[in-house]
């Protein structure tokens, strides 16, 4: 593999990450400008998977996008400093600081009923994701270390 093709491959992975993480967070598609911002943020912040475990988790999430919510949930408890979490967090920052998506980050005023309904609904979804995510994460980490 030549140096140029490795370089293009890394960029392609970052572009794919940007699209997947934006979809995960907000169910949205991304214009080119936002993808570029995500890539630039990764570069500036030095966001790279350095350990075998981090690389495996990240590669798995990008290869199988359905796993992102679960791995994010599992890592939240078991590996909060996982590069996957940091990249999703960075995507959230990039999305929030733009007029197109900012409303999805502003506070919501709800009635008391809706407040508890939404809180419980989100809480239940989070619990289910954690219950699936923890064993998934542990398995991927084990395979990476073997």
């Amino acid at each position: 593999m030549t140096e140029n093709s490795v370089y293009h491959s890394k960029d392609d992975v970052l572009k794919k990450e940007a699209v997947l993480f934006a979809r995960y967070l907000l169910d949205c598609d991304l214009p080119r400008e936002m993808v570029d911002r995500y890539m630039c943020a990764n570069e500036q912040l030095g966001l790279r998977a350095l350990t075998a475990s981090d690389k495996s988790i990240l590669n798995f999430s990008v290869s199988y996008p359905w796993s992102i919510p679960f791995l994010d949930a599992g890592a939240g408890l078991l590996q909060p400093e996982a590069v996957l979490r940091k990249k999703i967090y960075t995507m959230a920052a990039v999305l929030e600081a733009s007029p197109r998506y900012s409303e999805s980050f502003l506070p919501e005023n709800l009635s008391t009923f809706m407040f508890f309904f939404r809180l419980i609904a989100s809480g239940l979804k989070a619990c289910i994701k954690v219950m699936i995510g923890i064993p998934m994460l542990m398995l991927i980490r084990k395979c990476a270390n073997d």
Partner: protein
Amino acid sequence: MIDVIIVGSGPGGVNAAFPLCEAGLNVLMLDFGNIDKKYRQLVPSEDFTKIRIADNRQHRYFLGDEYEGILLGNIRVGTKLTPPRLHVVADSAELMPVDSDTFVANESLALGGLADSWGAGVLPFREEDFSDMPVSLCDLNQHYRNVAQRIGISGGSDDLSFLFGEHDFMMPPLDIDSNAEKVFNRYKRLKRRFNDSGFFMGRAPLAVCSRPYRGRDAHQYHDMDYWADTDSSVYRPRYTVEELKRFSNFTYMNERFVHSFKERDDNLVDITAGVGKGSRKETYTARAVVLSAGTMGSARIALRSLNKYDVRIPILTNSYTYIPSININMLGQTLRDRRSSHSQLSGMYFSDSSHRWPVLSNFFSYRSLLTFKLLKESPLPQRECLKIMRILMPLFAIITIFHRDSPSPYKYCVLHKSHDSAPDRLEIQYRMSDEELRGIDADEKAIKGFYRQLGCWPIKAIRRAPGSSIHYSGTLPMSREERELTCNAEGRLYGTRSVYVADGSVISPLPSIVPTFTIMAIADRTGKLLAQKLKS
């Protein structure tokens, strides 16, 4: 001939300079003077919500051009140093290195010092707070008034004014937001019960204009105070520097990093300063020097100048805890858009019946430090966390608590000489006693209880590392007895003829009350007394 050199442009330096300039003395202010050259002009004078839905450049100042506003690692959400404020700490690690595993030292080389991003709280000390110092509240009352007139203070008549007094130049208080209003109304209904338990709440005076004052605008309630000063309503010492520049006898020189002083046999003092970050040095001569380089900065200069390397001197800091909380009074309520980012309410707790040593708490709402930062604070999957944080934010409150600090043999700093061209290194060791920690735990437990009664349920108490409060003092304390590396009641460093200190260094012990207003009053007094001495 320069009469007085002032080192630093922070709250101490500018307030020492004013009476000296008014007295007609020639004053030279030497300052490094970092400013924000990049982001200030980008931030529009609009409220937070309008900016969020309309400004295509917001990512530049909210996140930073190098994404320095995305804080990974251990830096918590409460950090208020946003990209437009990062100039406040720029270059300080390089020029003023600190070695410590037990203390977080934030120092500033900015125009205006650390106060270029302060919270603007201006409660004065009480008589008891001066009990170990050779000055009293009576000595400082006029100087508090001078400073209040100079910087502009807004505040109201409530329980805190009976504790701290009302200022003559008070502008009406800022409006509080809907989050704080609910809490304050509940406090007022249950006031007697709280007061009997030693808890008093009110709207603390703020150095924020509620109406136009001395060329500054009234606060616009844009909730952008962590990002910009578009209405100049929040006092910054750099506004006083601009006023000082109108005196023909005042000169401001930036890009000057003061290293040391040397008193001469002809009763003059030489100051040696580096130019920028380079190796070139210049010497300035004056009849007197006022050190206002900050608690650690002034200590470095004094220790270096007097060749007191490897000598321990005390250092104090307010222990700082912040408590994200849910204000259940806001359930089903609408959060008003119009608000300021400042402390909405202050609560003072006296654990002793004599009301001797209060613990200060402040109540903030959370919005303008952005939602994404909250995702890092939770172990939840980030998609659900975002949804939850959005609905919790109207109910969100952050309660901050500052505790008093007293000197001990386990709280000290030492300057170690560098033997090459690298800067001298300041080692700081800081450890609280078990008794102090128990006292802090007990006070915080009581305060959490009070806020719970007010409807604010704590989620988690986060005690920051020592030094995180960014309140420092006590390195060159005022002392009644002549001891080396202390100052007399006029602020003169003992053992020198004409070197004065006018910043947090002179204050010991350090009450829980934010010290900045007192630093300014002491500096005003030091400047006044020095002016009288030099003119006589």
